[in-house]
């Protein structure tokens, strides 16, 4: 069965790039360009994995995580942010985030194995 990944990323270029890379790996991709869109998409269809940015307009990543917890959605989350500070990391960890990547520091080659774990 084809796995479904929701990408919540406000930077359109990056979001589309990730989408294309994942599509090539035979993954179905939905893209949300802000937090609100992400929550809407989650309510519509629970994906196998959420790739979540933190700094987003309308609603940010934290708001998305809050919604997931509140609505008891069962969905693994990998945060991909450019924020590398302890506070954001800790906050995400408390919200049962599976992995945290600083997207500028990694290559797609490193990201892929982490994503793959949740798509088996």
């Amino acid at each position: 069965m084809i796995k479904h990944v929701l990408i919540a990323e406000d930077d359109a270029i990056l979001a589309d790039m990730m989408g294309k890379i994942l599509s090539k790996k035979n993954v179905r991709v939905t893209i949300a360009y802000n937090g609100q869109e992400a929550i809407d998409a989650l309510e519509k269809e629970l994906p196998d994995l959420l790739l979540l940015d933190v700094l987003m307009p309308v609603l940010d990543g934290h708001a998305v995580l809050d919604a997931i917890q509140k609505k008891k959605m069962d969905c693994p989350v990998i945060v991909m942010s450019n924020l590398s500070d302890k506070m954001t990391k800790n906050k995400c960890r408390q919200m049962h985030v599976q992995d945290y990547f600083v997207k500028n520091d990694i290559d797609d080659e490193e990201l892929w194995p982490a994503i793959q774990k949740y798509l088996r």
Partner: protein
Amino acid sequence: MSKPRRTTASDTLAIKLKVLAREKEEVRRKLVISAKEKENVRRKLMVTAKKLRLKASQLAVTAKEKEHVRRKLVVTAKEKESIRRTLVVTAKEKENVRRKLMVTAKKLHDKAAQLAVTAKEKEVVRRTLVETAKKLKISHETLEKKVLERTKYCEELMAKDEAILASIGDGLIATDKSGRILLVNKAFERLLGWKETEARGRFLSKILPMFDANGTIISEAQSLVTKVLKERSMTTSTGTIFYKRKDGTLFPVAITVAPIFIGKELMGAVKVFRDITKEKEIDKARSEFMAIASHQLRTPLTAIRWALSSLKRENLPEELKSMLHTAHETSTQMAVTIRRMLMISYLEESATEPEMTQVDLKAVLEKVVRLHDAHRQRNGLEIEVLCSENLLPETDEQLLIEILDNLLSNAYKYTPRGGNVKLRATLQGEMIRIDVADTGYGIPKEEQRKIPKKFFRASNIASPAASGTGIGLYMVYNIVRLIGGTISFVSVENKGTTFTLLFPS
């Protein structure tokens, strides 16, 4: 008498008789005259006799007198004799005295001679003394002049010092050994709201409590003044310290404290502090700008990198693959530079707090080596990793990787082809020791002290080894401090460099 004439014998006789008569008469007359004269003589003699008798009696008297005189004279003679004798004795005595005097005179003479010599010497001494006195006078005058000049100079200096103290914008406090305030300047009054009269004599820690960035009070034992008085050397605050004004408000300060010595004795400390509110604001604005700029650069760069990396895996002609490889590598390098710039802005802002977790050191070393393996192979270098078993320090993994990443990439960058690099981790007491040793260009001795400076690049590697920004080591030194470690290096030009990192296990 009648003249003989031619007459007869009778006549001649008669004439002769007549002549005789006449002659007789003559004689008679003469006799008469003679008698008369004799009478006269007799009378005269009588008179003379009388005179003589008188004379005789006179003489008798005189004789008597003379006898008397003689007697007297005899007496006198006797007296004289006695006197003479006395005189003889006296003469003898006088002779003795004379002799003695002679001797004395001689002595006196000698003495005089000696005195003359002494006098000469004394004269010389006197002249010398006079000379010396003159010189002393001149010296004294000079000295007095100098003292006056010096006093004037000192007064000017003091006035200048006071003016400087009054006019400097930095707050200044001098304390004695026990931390009691001796003196403060105008800026102190202005910055803190305390008057000098209120502050003087009181303990510095009472008047001026210090707080760290979290608002926690810094105890006196940890204060810079305490440190300076203990270590007897100057120190400058690191990190941000806040002072509390008299009205209770806080403001950030940069502090330098120096010990005061009089001779070798420690008398107290002088503390100079500067209100860095403005700097903090500027720093913050700069850091924010750096952060935003970096983020704005990073996000598109990430997209580029990912696209390139993804493309690399496509089945493309070798020529295109090679171009893609270069593009991917340079964009990755750019991403690293941006990350470092961002990190420095965080470090300088003290916004980064180490995140302590148990770290598998061996895995970290392997990861870092793997990360730079392409770089190593390209430069034709050997790597040797030595790691003691079970090194699991409590530290910030990300920061540690950042340090090693820098050191290793420097080692690769600045070692000529064919060299080798050693990465060695051992336990040294309570500390973890990591050595990164290369056989590279080394750092010129005269430039070694510049090492932790931002944007420093050694002159011998600036051209041959191409790229480099000079922020890597600056960052390393800052991160090392953050994880409570120390870093040092030994470098010999054209022999190599060994960086040694020590941090708590």
